[in-house]
């Protein structure tokens, strides 16, 4: 899906955050030992979604080029998957989650770069939420390392 407008970018990432939250909630039920960590990640996903919406709705105005702030920006280039195959093993599930977080991070940081000069407040929140992904990825890697040991 090609994204050209701020609305489409905000709407798309909102769906990714919501679907990621649901995914973490499901995994928390299946793997209660790490349940608390997964639930905290889900909570953060929902907080991110709200922060992005507030930033966008708080500054959107006809002075800004919201309908023209993205160029050659396609979600297909990121293929963020927020579902896990049935019967996947726990280590493989963690690997998929890391992949999802890395791709989401790349999407957010690329979106931030593209929208920087035209919709700076939205760009700033994309960047902030994107950078925070580093901690999430590290957390998931640590969990994977523990299992491997």
């Amino acid at each position, binding site marked *: 899906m090609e994204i050209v*407008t701020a*609305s489409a970018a905000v709407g798309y990432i909102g769906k990714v955050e919501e679907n990621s939250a649901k995914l973490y909630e499901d995994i928390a039920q299946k793997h209660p030992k790490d349940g608390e960590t997964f639930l905290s990640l889900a909570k953060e996903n929902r907080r991110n979604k709200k922060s992005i919406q507030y930033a966008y*709705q708080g500054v959107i*105005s006809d002075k*800004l080029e*919201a309908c023209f702030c993205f160029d050659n920006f396609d979600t297909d280039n990121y293929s963020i998957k927020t579902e896990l195959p049935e019967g996947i093993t726990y280590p493989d599930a963690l690997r998929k989650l890391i992949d999802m977080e890395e791709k989401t991070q790349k999407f957010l940081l690329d979106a931030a770069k593209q929208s920087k000069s*035209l919709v700076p407040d939205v760009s700033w929140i994309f960047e902030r939420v994107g950078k925070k992904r580093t901690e999430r990825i590290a957390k998931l890697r640590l969990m994977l390392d523990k299992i491997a040991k």
Partner: protein
Amino acid sequence: MTILEEPIKEVLTIKNYIGGEWVESKSEKILDVINPATQKVLAKVPVSTRGEIDEAVKVAKETFPMWRNTTPVARVRYLFRLKELMEEAFEEVSRVQTMEHGKTIDESRGETRRGIEMVEVATGIPSLMQGQLLEDIAVGIDEFAYRQPIGVFGIIGPFNFPFMVPLWFAPFAVACGNCIVVKPSSEDPISQTKIAELAEEAGIPPGVWNVVNGGRDVVTGMLEHPGIDGICFVGSTRVGRDVIYRKCGETGKRVIAQCGAKNFVLVMPDANLDRTIRSCMTSFYGNTGQRCLSGGNLVIVGEGLKEHEFNAFYEKIVNAFVKAASEIRVGYALDERVQMGPLRDKEKKQRLVGLVQKGVDEGAKLMLDGRNIKLIGDWPHDAFLNPSVFTEVTPDMYIAKEELFGPIANIMRVKTLDKAIEIIHNNPYGNASSIFTQNGKWTRKFVHEVKIGNVGINIGIVAPMAFFPFAGMKQSFYGVLHGQKESIDFFTDRKVVIQRWF
């Protein structure tokens, strides 16, 4: 991608809101409110009678003594609640705007935000409305001035910003202690019904905030009614100057008349090409060109360039502009891929189709013909027009002089900044103009010399915030400005008191 969910599911019956009651009009004349993208009927709106506007003014007048004696602090608490409710309804009212007007969802949300900002600024009335005092203007004598509300104000809304424009005035009028009667555009009246519903939910007392739907009879009724103390109008210069301003002069009413425009956008040789072009797309084609701040004429200025350099620079800008305009995605604006929606209705489209032909007949070169309709999605073509671009436009052409109010851009070339300013000054309007450059000297000269109310520097749409005046000069504006301080002046009388105690 799917279309965002439509908040209007069935045909609405628009009622008047008078004295806190939702009243069905007695008028036999009922108009359809049509979604310009789908051509489906969204609502039935009455063309209310003279008797109905008289009734609304009577109720507002009777309510005024109670409202003016409600303290400013108490009055703005209603507005705080209204703001909260508007935030809660943010997405719904934005989508309603897209459905009834056609603008993109980004543009509708921008309009909602700007409307809410007006309410936010008006909540500062307890500070903003304060007067002045000087002790001892003579020994034992003090003088002070304070502001008092005036009475009832009529607000006449345009079709192009169905949500925001009445909010340029309504919250300030009400916060200052006045009562209002709003007449929304009959083309897209649903947004003002939604706002009145929220005002009711916020608990604003019956009779303070009234809405009467209709057309010319309602406007004439407002203009001639002795119970109305002032009029706020946004629309064409012909109506604003020749009807509203003149009639308010005759009947002694205060008036804000924000009128037509023909805005120039200057591109200097050192402009950042990519950002300038994107900004121009918003300026010329945002809101489908239906706003008084839209760019109309793009002037490519060859200041300091040799002839061959200027030719190359001109070609580069024209090519980039035409390419970007040709790539604009047009369609039903609840589709988030869409960058430009339809015109408000098919009559407006037909008028613009005629103006494109007029440009051709006048000798301008049509580089991009928006009459060739290309849409995202399968929608009736009735109100859709794609972007058009003319080059070889001269200032004497009709398309260069008059406000077209649609997605048509005229490109001109001039050698110097002085010449560009001269062309702007020869145009009768003075609403907005912008310069795209990185050069401080050129910018300073432009800002200093140009006789234009709203000036942009690397900004394509010069829309002032709620806490600044919305300016306008020449034939773009008549009466008193609006904006934070100006609004307080407009909606209040000053009373000066000199006191001595024996």
